[in-house]
């Protein structure tokens, strides 16, 4: 079994690396967590209230933030923390295999390991680092702990199971029902069952509360206050997720086993007790929650995957044991290891892998920051202000963490005409040959991440922001300075993601430049990018569709600043709610040669299926 476990660990790790990549994507949750981690370590100021959940008024994840803080304290950064999650997922595969073998046979272990890895991408964004990431491993440890309570029901086993459950409840609020699993397995003890169950419940409650008292007081208080307000929530349907079929098989087999009055059926019921105790309480809540308007996403049952895998694997293995010769049964874990290692994502039936991911990674952001600083001699402030990307606020948040604090000089970096854009493109649309100002940051089978350097004239230090809400309110204009090293958002822009509708108009000054210089503006149409139009330029031409403008500079005129005015209709089809994130929407401005090439590439990508 040791050889098979080792083979499965290596194979699962390889498969996890293909699914998750070596660096997590830029993800707002990751940076919110990182902010807390840095504040805790650098300022000696840590939270015990955690972060907001998607359930209004509820907070969680203190234990997750503490674990992230510990890793950071040990010198493990964001990439290292991500790899730690992938290694722990591989360890979960080994633990589930062990459980399956101990409770059933090699077939049960192999099936459980495969079902654990099956469609991981449907439950969590494997390329991201957030508090859902450790749930596969933690759920597996809880399964082991609950099974240990059944095998050895005593104070030690119940305490450990209750503490693991408490830890999980403080990693993700979705794990709050794990306490019921501990009580369930304690009640199965042959002696002192009620005392053990009460003890388990007490340890769980005290442990959960003690890890983050402000979180739970906040949550309970919020629940009591919002109790009346919940009434207006509309029931939603349970979204399909791949665990349902296996859970149905597990519960169905367990019920059917009562009809079979055999020793094997009785033995099976004993074996599956721990897995069902972990699976059923949380799954029941998950199935009921949509009736009360809660969006039951698959990630909320990610921690049940191990229990479901084991509960479904045991009856499958009972059948396989009869059908397969012993040698073939012994070979099954190695076959699974080869499938996972060689075909990786196919073995895990994943539809989205790191190679399919189009969101940049933390490593991409760090590489871009390094390139601009060390090669192009940009200051940190210039990078935050003059590097533009369709990724918006998330990328900018990542940049803030990628840039060392010492490279954040506060103050004007000078009026240097330079800009850069960061794009993720289809490999097929890349220009041939690649212009020298284009740098490839990373290439996968699905996408190429590029940095395009250019001359840019827009002075981002000050903007005239005019907004006109669609409700007929009068237009309001404010002149705003923007210092992204202090505040990522430009003040007075409409809030993103809040369903705000109306017109946003920005007037931007252009740095004076030498006569004869021609720069261009291109307003792209990309998924999740708010599409706008050029309203006016100081001199030059604007295309009929107002998406392309060419600005000529006849002579240096320092007295009257050149102004370009751009407009976005937020809420219109080309700028739907999800496309506008509260930042200045992405557009391309720079020297005519570079912008023309970028525009041609982006237009090709627009036309691509």
């Amino acid at each position: 079994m040791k050889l098979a476990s080792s083979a499965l660990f290596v194979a699962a790790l390889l498969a996890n690396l293909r699914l998750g990549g070596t660096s997590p994507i830029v993800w707002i949750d990751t940076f919110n967590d990182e902010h807390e981690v840095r504040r805790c370590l650098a300022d000696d100021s840590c939270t015990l209230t955690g972060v907001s959940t998607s359930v209004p008024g509820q907070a969680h994840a203190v234990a997750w933030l503490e674990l992230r803080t510990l890793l950071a304290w040990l010198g493990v950064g964001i990439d290292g923390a991500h790899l730690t999650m992938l290694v722990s997922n591989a360890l979960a595969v080994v633990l589930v295999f062990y459980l399956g073998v101990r409770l059933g046979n090699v077939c049960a272990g192999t099936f459980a390991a495969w079902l654990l890895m099956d469609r991981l991408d449907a439950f969590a964004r494997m390329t991201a680092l957030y508090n859902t990431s450790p749930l596969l491993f933690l759920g597996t440890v809880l399964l082991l702990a609950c099974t240990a309570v059944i095998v050895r029901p005593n104070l030690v086993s119940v305490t450990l199971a209750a503490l693991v459950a408490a830890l999980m409840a403080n990693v993700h609020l979705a794990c709050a029902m794990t306490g019921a699993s501990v009580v369930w397995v304690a009640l199965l003890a042959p002696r002192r069952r009620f005392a053990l169950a009460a003890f388990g419940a007490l340890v769980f409650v005290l442990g959960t509360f003690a890890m983050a008292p402000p979180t739970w007081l906040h949550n309970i208080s919020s629940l009591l206050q919002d109790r009346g307000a919940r009434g207006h929530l509309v029931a939603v349907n349970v979204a399909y997720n791949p665990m349902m079929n296996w859970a149905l098989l597990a519960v169905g087999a367990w019920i059917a086993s009562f009809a079979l009055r055999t020793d094997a059926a009785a033995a099976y019921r004993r074996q599956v007790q721990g897995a069902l105790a972990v699976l059923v309480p949380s799954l029941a809540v998950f199935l009921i929650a949509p009736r009360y308007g809660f969006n039951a996403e698959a990630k909320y049952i990610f921690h049940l995957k191990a229990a479901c895998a084991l509960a479904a694997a045991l009856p499958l293995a009972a059948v396989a044991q009869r059908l397969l010769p012993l040698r073939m049964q012994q070979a099954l874990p190695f076959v699974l290891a080869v499938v996972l290692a060689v075909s990786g994502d196919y073995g895990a039936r994943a539809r989205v892998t790191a190679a399919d991911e189009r969101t940049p990674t933390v490593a991409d952001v760090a590489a871009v920051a390094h390139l601009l600083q060390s090669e192009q001699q940009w200051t940190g402030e210039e990078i935050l202000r003059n590097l533009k990307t369709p990724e918006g606020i998330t990328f900018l948040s990542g940049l803030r963490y990628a840039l060392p604090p010492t490279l954040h000089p506060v103050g004007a970096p000078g009026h240097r005409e330079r800009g850069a854009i960061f794009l993720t493109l289809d490999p097929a649309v890349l220009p041939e040959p690649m212009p020298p100002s284009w740098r490839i940051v990373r290439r996968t089978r699905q996408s190429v991440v590029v940095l395009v350097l250019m001359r840019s004239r827009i002075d981002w230090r000050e903007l005239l922001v005019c907004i006109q809400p669609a409700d007929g309110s009068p237009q309001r204009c404010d002149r705003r300075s923007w210092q992204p090293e202090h505040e990522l958002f430009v003040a007075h822009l409409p809030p993103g993601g809040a369903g705000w509708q109306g017109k946003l108009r920005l007037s931007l000054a252009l740095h004076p430049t030498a006569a004869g210089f021609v720069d261009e503006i291109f307003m792209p149409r990309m998924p999740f990018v708010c599409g706008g139009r050029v309203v006016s330029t100081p001199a030059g031409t604007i295309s009929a569709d107002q998406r392309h403008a060419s600005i000529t500079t006849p002579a240096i005129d320092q007295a009257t600043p050149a102004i370009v005015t751009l407009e976005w209709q937020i809420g219109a089809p080309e700028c739907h709610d999800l496309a506008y994130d509260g930042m200045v929407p992405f557009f391309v401005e720079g020297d005519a040669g570079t912008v023309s090439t970028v525009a041609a590439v982006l237009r090709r990508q627009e036309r691509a299926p």
Partner: protein
Amino acid sequence: MKRCTVRVARQLLRCVLGLTILSSSGFAADGSDEPLLRRFVERLDRSMVSRCLTPAAGTAMSELVGSGALQPVLGSYFVLKRGNVGGDHIEIEIEDHTHATYGLTLALPGTKTGEPAGRGARFWYYLAPTNAPDPRAAEALLALAQRFDAAIPEAALAPCAGAGPSREEPRYPRALALGSAWLGVMVLLGTIVYGVRALALGLRE
């Protein structure tokens, strides 16, 4: 051992009962018929979770100003110039006949550093450091603060839950977070070792 356990259990029970009686007597004082549990949690919550002022605070202040009840405090020497409600504090400003202004901040306990000039039922009072040294102004400001403090109902304070935990939430030292994380890791490792051993030995038995 058994006798000791029973004694500890009795003491615990006494504590719980005492706490409950204490809580319920406190609640009865204001004649509220809200559920006991809810009020108890709110009291605990208030001491540990950051709270924010709701628009009801502004309404209560406006009603107090409109009622004329502040005039005896202000007299003919001062006028109330400004009253701003924001997040976890209220700023008030008065002006004397020479147009010199004096400010005071009513802040929820623990949200503002420095020694308060006074403490009320819900707020601590901080005189603005820019105030000219005028004892009459300080006296008037503190008296105003007490009036506002008394006028703002408990319902005007709510956990800063709208957008999640408040930025001004209570913070804890790094050692606590790291210690807790180490404990969590130990629990996980201990569970794995114990679980694997229990399965190996238990199933054999």
